């Protein structure tokens, strides 16, 4: 039950989805299975929310380190849930869009979610700059190649590149930094990314096959009973 049933489910679902590509009458099965998958994905969101609540309630009840912040998480969670799941503060009907301008849900989205989400990533600009100063060193030939390529891209993707090398004549225009940046992206970058992509692609294909055939079982966890 704990092991064979999941293995059988993975095999049947995986096989149906592969065969549905080759056998048109099975296309409908493929659509159904993916629609089921989409619906289960929502339950996974609920699992995530439930787990978050459990972790923070435990932290709160046991007065663990930084427990007052768990109140913030829980309050934020409940407030957004009230506005979203229970549609409190939504002026429209029950079937109206949640993200309508003026609804409480959209207001929290615009005033809390957006500034927090975007500033979290904006912080990385500072760390990238710090890393450039401290860690981006031409220690060997490979690192120097990386550095030169980065330089050309940094220059070439701004108007600076044109300002610096705009004077280069047309018959040598590949030496203009913006053109060089485009060439790097279209040629060596493309080649390198493609080599990585082919490697990853093969990895995904072989892993998918191992999962469907039940050779790869780590996703079932360690308990074999």
């Amino acid at each position, binding site marked *: 039950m704990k092991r064979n049933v999941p293995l059988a489910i993975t095999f049947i679902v995986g096989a149906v989805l592969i065969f549905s590509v080759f056998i048109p009458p099975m*296309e409908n099965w493929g659509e159904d299975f993916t629609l089921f998958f989409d619906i289960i994905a929502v339950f996974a969101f609920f699992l995530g929310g439930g787990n978050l609540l459990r972790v923070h309630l435990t932290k709160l009840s046991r007065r663990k380190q930084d427990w007052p912040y768990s109140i913030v998480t829980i309050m934020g969670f409940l407030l957004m849930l009230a506005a979203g799941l229970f549609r409190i503060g939504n002026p429209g009907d029950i079937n109206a869009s949640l993200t309508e301008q003026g609804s409480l849900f959209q207001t929290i989205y615009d005033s809390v979610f957006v500034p927090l989400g975007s500033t979290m990533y904006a912080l990385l600009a*500072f760390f990238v700059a710090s890393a450039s100063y401290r860690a981006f060193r031409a220690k060997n030939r490979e690192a120097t190649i990386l550095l030169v390529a980065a330089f050309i891209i940094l220059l070439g993707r701004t108007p600076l590149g044109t300002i610096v090398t705009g004077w280069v004549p047309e018959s040598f225009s590949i030496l203009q930094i913006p053109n060089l940046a485009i060439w790097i992206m279209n040629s060596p970058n493309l080649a390198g990314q493609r080599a990585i992509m082919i490697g990853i692609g093969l990895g995904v294909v072989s892993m998918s096959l191992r999962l469907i055939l039940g050779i790869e079982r780590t996703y079932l966890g360690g308990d074999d009973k």
Partner: protein
Amino acid sequence: MTSHLMPPLALTLVDIGRILSLAVIAGGLLWLFLRAIKRKEVERRVIFLFIFVSVVAPILFPTVFQEKATPIVKDVFDKIESLPPGSVVLLSYDFDPAMAPEVQPMADAISRHCLVRGLKIIYMCLFATGQGQFTSTLENVIKPEFPDKVNLVDYVNIGYKAGNEGVLNVIITDFKKMFPTDVDGVPYDSIAVFKGIRSCKDLDLVISIGGGKPGIKEWILFVGDPGNVPIASGVAAVVAPLMYPYYPAQMLGMLGGIKGAAEYESELVHHYPQFKNSPTPALLMMGPQTLAHLVIMAFIVIGNILYLLERKKGRKR
């Protein structure tokens, strides 16, 4: 007239601000360089301050550069230009607020372009946050600039569905099965935009705006390649280099990062002068972008000078 009468050296407040801020940054970098020569490290907060100043100064004293579309951006623009009015374009908002400063300008510019060309747009999203981001396009672009365009007739928002690539695997054969209604509950069959559209295979163009997973890669793998659907994209800079292997065979063009967005805005204004007064956030952002790139390049050079001096010292020992 007045400008002719003004002396050639007359400076505006913005010019003075530009000169002062450049002087401050140049002075700071010189100080950093001198410290590097003396083999002295600086605190990371100083580096942070440099970046902050180099971003803030060009925002307060803006300099707008003209951009020329690179081939990969021009391909997207030309594809939209080549579509006859009435063609249906799907615009997928596959991004969250974290990517929005880079890709929202793309979504807005492409929306403007499609609407002015008389194309019909289906808006959807693979990120739940995309639905909220579409509200921004609706309120800031569609409603004020295209008041004659009618929801459900000229454009429709079918919103978000959970399931990432699972959503795409259904709509490649059957739209209605996945999206029985639009976001306001209007049934699929009552939406004029969907007339004659059964699946993604019937679309004239799909453009994914995003930068994460699910995004353009999933659109290519699950819709573009199996359905032979023309796919273009606007992606965050972090993802752009990864997508080049798909260009041009599997993805007809791409707007990469804020530079791609600025090139597209520039191309749009060039072809449609009526958008001259429309917001061009990406073009405005190229000022701070340029200065920040310059400062980071200076950091790399100074950092390497420091490294070389230390290595030299190490060898002597």
